[in-house]
């Protein structure tokens, strides 16, 4: 048989029907649902008198609108509250394999709770009305974000209409330097290929540097595949994948576990499989990264400077850079390490897992938030992550450093709840998007790793975490 890529294996094992032009119906195993992109889908289903095809494929949670403090007061914003209550009542009516509502001890960001509950398993197709569904590809799932019409389509038919993607291999070999993390790898990748570099592709991340990452690190990488334009990111199954999933609530057990693992071990690209594009990076050359602009591709290493638009020959790009510098309140050629920050956000579906919090705590330990930093928010990705962090004493480290330790949710990644930047405020953020207004109208976002965010918090400006030891 011809050597296949991991993507081709996942694709061909889910095709139900193919139209003449190649548009395929692919079967969906797991449907993750949150409150923002589902109400119109539930309503559409109801108006058409349709029932969900397979309720036990649905795992739901409320994460975008939920507050991260004073849970005893409930959700104060009535519009946010209505959206969360609409999900409550939709799930009550329709059902689900699992629902982790606001205040539930296992509630959290949808892309954190899927894997930690074993609701994301290798070989699955996973969809969610959320672009960061690419996260789940770290488990060799074909996982991608969909729109609300497609949410309704999957609910009604258990299938999605899709065209097969092209395949891209991003090979990262070599050893990562101390203080350099998965976040730095993926920012470096986006800096290299651009935010549209992966458009139309499913990206498989491979190489010794990817293999060396924990599952948390691999999730960080796949999470931001969409920031490179790719709807899906993938990492092959290995021992780490299997070890991570063993004993999770929805992971198979007994004989089914053995059978599952045997199958999962086949989920890798075959020797000699052909990709439509290949990109190679040397891990040893990647330094801690900081974005300077309003697109994730506008990124520099910590020892770098804000680039000068005058040196850009493409007029559309040059105008984009000029506009970004104006919005960000930055001058060309400013050293990255001289940029001060007002707030720090450690959280989001990119970087709110236990390993991320450990990395931030390691930097924060024995240090204090700098005086010019108004707020350092630490928002765990889920109730389970929060409890684990507290069991390890990480909350004490953060509180002693003057950071705030909050309840789980999406929080200031997109500022749909009360956590947000004020106009002009500058933030070191472990999230995934530095778009204009993303963290609050007029807010200025710089994307960094958790360790780099903590380093900015304690020094008051971007700082090379490697020199803080």
């Amino acid at each position, binding site marked *: 048989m011809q050597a296949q890529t991991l993507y081709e294996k996942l694709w061909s094992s889910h095709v139900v029907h193919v139209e003449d032009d190649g548009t395929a119906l692919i079967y969906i195993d797991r449907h993750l649902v949150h409150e923002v992109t589902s109400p119109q889908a539930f309503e559409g289903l109801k108006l058409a008198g349709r029932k969900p*095809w397979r309720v036990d494929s649905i795992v739901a949670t409320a994460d975008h609108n939920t507050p991260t403090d004073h849970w005893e007061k409930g959700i104060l914003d009535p519009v946010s509250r209505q959206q969360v209550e609409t999900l409550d009542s939709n799930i009550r009516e329709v059902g689900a394999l699992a629902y982790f509502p606001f205040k539930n001890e296992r509630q959290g960001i949808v892309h954190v709770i899927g894997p930690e509950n074993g609701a994301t398993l290798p*070989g699955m197709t996973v969809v969610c009305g959320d672009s960061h569904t690419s996260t789940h590809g770290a488990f060799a799932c074909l996982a991608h*974000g969909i729109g609300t019409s*497609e949410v309704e389509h999957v609910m009604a*038919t258990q299938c999605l209409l899709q065209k097969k993607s092209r395949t891209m291999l991003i090979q990262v070999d070599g050893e990562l330097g101390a203080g350099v993390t998965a976040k730095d790898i993926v920012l470096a990748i986006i800096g290299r290929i651009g935010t*549209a570099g992966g458009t139309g592709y499913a990206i498989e991340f491979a190489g010794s540097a990817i293999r060396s990452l924990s599952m948390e690190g691999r999730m960080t990488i796949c999470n931001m595949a969409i920031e490179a*334009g790719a709807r899906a990111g993938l990492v092959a199954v290995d021992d780490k994948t299997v070890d991570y999933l063993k004993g999770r609530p929805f992971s198979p057990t007994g004989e089914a576990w053995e059978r599952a693992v045997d199958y999962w071990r086949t989920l890798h690209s075959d020797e000699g499989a052909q990709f439509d594009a290949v990109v190679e990076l040397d891990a040893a050359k990647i330094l801690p990264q900081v974005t300077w602009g309003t697109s994730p591709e506008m990124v520099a290493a910590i020892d770098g400077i804000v680039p000068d638009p005058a040196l850009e020959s493409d007029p559309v790009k040059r105008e984009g850079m000029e506009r970004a510098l104006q919005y960000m309140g930055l001058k060309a050629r400013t050293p990255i390490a001289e940029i001060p920050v007002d707030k720090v956000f450690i959280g989001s579906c990119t970087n709110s897992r236990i390993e991320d919090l450990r990395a931030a705590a390691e930097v924060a330990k024995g240090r204090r938030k700098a005086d010019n930093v108004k707020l350092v928010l630490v928002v765990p990705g889920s109730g389970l992550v929060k409890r684990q962090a507290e069991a390890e004493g990480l909350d004490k480290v953060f509180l002693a450093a003057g950071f705030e330790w909050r309840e789980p949710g999406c929080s200031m990644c*997109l500022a749909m709840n009360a956590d947000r930047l004020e106009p002009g405020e500058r933030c070191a953020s472990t999230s995934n998007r530095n778009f204009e207004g993303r963290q609050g109208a007029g807010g200025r976002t710089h994307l960094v790793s958790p360790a780099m965010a903590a380093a900015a918090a304690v020094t008051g400006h971007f700082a090379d975490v490697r020199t803080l030891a």
Partner: protein
Amino acid sequence: MKPFQKLDGLVAPMDRANVDTDAIIPKQFLKSIKRSGFGPNLFDEWRYMDVGQPGQDNSGRPLNPEFVLNQPRYKGAEILLTRDNFGCGSSREHAPWALEDFGFRVLIGPSFADIFFNNCFKNGLLPIKLAADEVDALFAQCHGSEGYRLAVDLQARTITRPDGKVLAFDVDPFRRECLLNGWDDIGLTLRHADKIRDFEAKRRIAQPWLFA
């Protein structure tokens, strides 16, 4: 879904790359549980001088005179010219809902983000990819002539410029059929319900742990 066949419409230029869905419709408006009414908040942060809130009366808000869609010459535009990677970022379908509600039916650019591109077709909005030099020429003509219009024919897959030049474009045949007829995807898919059930039954035997 509203069908789309032909349109002769006024063109507005959105002359910047990487326009993301946060810019198209900011997050505070995603709290709505409805599909309609997003038009007044399309490009809210660029369009108004203040910060908009959901449920607000937008008629008295201060407009940003610099913003392209606030210029009188583009009032009533139904075709938006875009640059690379338009619609990048979040999967929010509120972005095409807002564009459609505002009055756009066609987007023309060199490239679109995948999820956004897909979402457009579900909402009677036609995104057209053209070569970069063809898009450059349309921007130049649009900037240079007030009341600039284009004629878009989905059946023929052509765009006709005022100077008579005809540009051909590609569109997936399946998507084109759906859009021409205003077909509902779900209804089409359910014609294959037996195939889905068969597939599912086999899967249940091969990988029972997926159906726990």
